[in-house]
């Protein structure tokens, strides 16, 4: 597990070069910690996040790890300390790149943010409520065939919104504290 407080680098995250520098640092740390990781990106002490920086830090970071063909590593992200103004920039870049992510709030509640279909969101919420679930749980709850439910969870896994353990899934951010994924 990697915890990274982005304000260690800058208090206001503005401009594309700043965003690229922060992202590169996070990527280098992820490269060092193995092939599978859950990462908490904490914006609690970030004053301003503008669109250009959000594109570099959030969107381009996620794009590295949700690539269908060749993801860089199996890395999951939980974003904490996101303010309303941060969210303006983050939602804009997620929409632009058709991405989604999980935010975790002070009360421990996690939310799915960005571009997801109604059924994807429903499936994620079911897995999140259960703590851990399999495709049959999703199939029963939202009326999908077992094959379609498995496909749905596979899609959520590829988007790094659920973590796969053998045939079971855990929603990213559903645990009170991030789990250690490395064996």
């Amino acid at each position, binding site marked *: 597990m990697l915890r990274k407080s982005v304000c260690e680098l800058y208090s206001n995250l503005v401009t594309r070069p700043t965003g690229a520098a922060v992202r590169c640092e996070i990527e280098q740390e992820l490269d060092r910690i193995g092939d599978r990781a859950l990462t908490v990106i904490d914006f609690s002490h970030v004053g301003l996040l*503008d669109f250009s920086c959000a*594109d570099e830090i959030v969107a381009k970071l996620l794009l590295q790890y949700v690539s269908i063909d060749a993801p860089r590593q199996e890395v999951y992200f939980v974003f904490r300390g996101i303010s309303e103004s941060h969210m303006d920039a983050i939602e804009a870049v997620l929409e632009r790149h058709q991405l989604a992510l999980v935010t975790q709030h002070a009360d421990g509640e996690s939310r799915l943010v960005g571009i997801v279909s109604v059924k994807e969101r429903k499936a994620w919420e079911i897995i999140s409520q259960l703590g851990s679930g399999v495709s049959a749980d999703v199939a029963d709850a939202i009326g999908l065939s077992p094959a379609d439910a498995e496909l749905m969870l596979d899609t959520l896994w590829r988007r790094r919104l659920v973590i796969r353990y053998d045939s079971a899934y855990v929603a990213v951010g559903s645990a009170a504290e991030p789990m250690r994924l490395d064996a």
Partner: protein
Amino acid sequence: MTTIINVPHSLEDKSFEQVLDQVAPLPLDEKIIVDTRHARWASPYGLTALLALAQSRAERPVLYVPEAENVSSYWSRMDFFKHAAELYELQGRVKSTKAAETSVLLEVTSISKSDDVHDVVDKIQQRAQEALVKNLNLDAKITMRFTMALSEVCQNIVEHAGRGGWVAVQTYTWRVRLGGRKVVVIAVADPGIGFRQSLESAPGFQRKDRWDDGQALEETVMRGASRFRDPGRGQGLAGVRRFVGNWDGKLSIRSGTARIAVLPKGDWDEDEPLVEDLSYFPGAQVQITIPERVT
């Protein structure tokens, strides 16, 4: 040959066109004297555009400074003369003052690299909250969004202009339509390559049947086009558009021979969405206006 350019008494985005109408026909290397002696007022747009005008000339121009002491003093407090002295040959008495100008959120500031944008953001955050929330009666939520918009328009200079430019932010009373309502105005001006040339530098760019400055502004401002292939590009101005829409503000961008405006929903401004066939001026000049909230 030297040509005298008469600057109108009130210098803002619209009246600056009178300056450009005089300058545009002249060869770049022709000496000009920019005569501001009778100026009575200048908006942040007027001041930043005057600096961009000097940058755009091959021959260093002369600036006759305003005769009215209060005007000269105010331009000093805006740091205009500090920068103008580098670009113009100043003639006349510059009234210097150390008094702070409470309406100024950001003095005229040079932007040429990313660090300048960080400095601007750091500086304005200290002043924006009070000016926007207390003086303009706006919701506290605006402060961060306002600074985001400022950051994005400044970055346009760094990313696209190809040379340095200027930014200034001020609150003042808008007398055109608002009947004395206060506004906060961000003005950003550069004499760089402009929107059309920036888009033309995109890999694989193909000229359309109709292709001019107005079309380039529409593509960039309304449709998020960018010279970069990266699909993440072009979000900054889209974000600025949303910001002005949410706060009943106005965004206007002039580049080359055209000016595009994202107009407020309210009726406090009567500008045209797109004005073409203006006198040519290089680069881009951006103005964001957010009005006071009236309860």
